[in-house]
């Protein structure tokens, strides 16, 4: 009897925490779906009735929305495309070979992730300014590349490491060359990990704020995270539009994150789990 009462208490507490955690997201999405008079109401409307998409259509008509979608995609796709190749090469080296300087390389890869971007943005700005590359997507791409690489090397190392080396060696005993064994045995096995890492890189680059904020000053060159500020003016904030914009910006990230979360997020705590 006491046991089941305790169970009910725990379940109740769990449900309460669920509601508190998820409510902000619910509120963002439902606000985006409400007509203006339900948003600007002193007593909140808990459900949007009627559901309207006018906030979404007006958000998409905000100047430079499509422009900034294209900018975000350009930056993110180039960064992910280049970094996945470079980081895979390095991950193979770290996971498969022992060599002098390997520990130094690992220390660099982990340590560099701890350096705060808002400290580096000062020299980056001055460097790019002196070569006339401020307000250009190219500068942002180069910078994001370096931000994503350490994380991607680290995650991919885990994936490559988990493929038993015996498989490769068996293929080589059967007459495959080293490259052949790698391409035919290891690569197919590691491909899902590559996709997951690429998607996670996509998310990180898509969400980045401070570099884009400092480097991209003209509206036509900005990315979506910066574009969100355009709903706030001196006259106040267009909450419906902002929530619609926030929902739109989050949507691809949330979908992608749900796909890869289980595969990718273990790397950060790799040091604490018995390998």
């Amino acid at each position, binding site marked *: 009897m006491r046991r089941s009462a305790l*169970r009910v208490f*725990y379940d109740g*507490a*769990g449900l309460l*925490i669920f509601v508190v*955690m998820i409510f*902000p997201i619910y*509120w*963002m999405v439902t606000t985006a779906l409400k007509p203006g008079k339900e*948003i600007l109401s002193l007593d*909140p409307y808990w459900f949007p009735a009627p559901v309207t998409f006018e906030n979404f259509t007006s958000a998409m008509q905000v100047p430079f929305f499509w422009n900034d979608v294209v900018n975000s995609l350009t930056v993110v796709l180039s960064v992910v495309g280049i970094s996945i190749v*470079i980081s895979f*090469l390095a991950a193979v*080296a770290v996971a*498969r*070979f022992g*060599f002098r*300087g390997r*520990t130094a*390389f690992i*220390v660099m*890869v982990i*340590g*560099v992730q*701890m*350096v*705060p971007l*808002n*400290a*580096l943005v*000062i*020299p980056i700005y*001055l460097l790019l300014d002196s070569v006339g590359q401020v307000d250009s997507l190219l500068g942002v791409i180069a*910078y994001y590349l370096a931000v994503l*690489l*350490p994380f991607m*090397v680290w995650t991919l190392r885990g994936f490559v*490491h988990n493929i038993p080396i015996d498989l*490769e060696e068996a293929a080589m005993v059967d007459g495959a060359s080293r490259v052949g064994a790698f391409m035919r045995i290891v690569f197919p096995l590691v491909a899902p990990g590559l996709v997951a890492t690429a998607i996670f890189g996509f998310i990180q680059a898509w*969400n980045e*704020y*401070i570099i884009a904020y400092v480097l991209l000053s003209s509206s036509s060159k900005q990315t979506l995270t910066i574009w*969100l*500020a355009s709903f706030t003016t001196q006259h106040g*904030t267009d*909450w419906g539009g902002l*929530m619609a914009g*926030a929902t739109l*910006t*989050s949507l691809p*990230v*949330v979908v992608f994150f*749900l796909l890869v979360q289980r595969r990718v*997020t273990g790397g950060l*705590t*790799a*040091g*604490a*789990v018995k*390998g």
Partner: protein
Amino acid sequence: MVARKGLPYALIAPATVVILGVLGWPLLDLLYLSTQHYGLRELFQHQGQFVGLQNFANILADPQFKYVVEVTLIFTAANIVLSMTLATIIALLMERVSSFVRVLLGAGLVFVWATPVIPAIDLWQWMFDYEFGVINWLLTRIGAGNYIHHNWFENPVQGFTVITVVVVWGAIPFLALTLHAGLTQVPRELIEAAQIDGARAWQIFRNVTLPTLKPLLLVLLSLSTIWDFQVFNQVWVMLNQRPNENYYVISVFSFQESFRVSQFGLGSAVAVVMVAILMIISFFYVRQTVRSINEAGA
């Protein structure tokens, strides 16, 4: 595996070049800039004036910097303590609820985790809006006082409370889910044996669960410290990119010195202090991670 000698070096070369070129070089440049007088005039000439350690002497003598450091330490500590404690409670709770609630709570946490930080800040800004914010309505309704047209950011203590809520809300999912995964590694037999021996729940937590979780807790603690110490976006976006001086945590202070008042040398000196502190905090985390990799033999 025996390798041709050059191969691993060829494989890591592109990554090394990019990381050192795009992160390492600016890091050195930051150090160099911190010894320069670098104002607007220097910005146009692309050339600073060497002043030695004068910038550091200036910020250390600056009462505002003292305020910044104090606020940053309190704010960081509050974020760490709250997010770690709440995450631990949630992780322990997840072990005790019915499987339906566990799945639901897990899914909710993943959704929060997935939400990008800038939209998340925007939505909290809306919830704490002074006029139509749902939180002011709720607090007034449950009788916590009159919060109608209450502006949370007039008083920096209240403002930082709101920002802490945003930071902690965003930090909980990763911490709680990682801890929950860690808890499932605690050997069942040990807990059962302790129960048979008549140990109380608290004793089991202290003497069985906690020691097993210790390495994981330490790593999460150092990651939280690293992240919470450099919080920038939450302050910056929450206050519409115009935080007043009460809201200068160290990252914001360094940014404002550089980009608002164009004292890039001073801003760099503040940033160097920030990086130096972070390096010390990171040391444990990096050492632990590298050690585990080398022990695992790959």
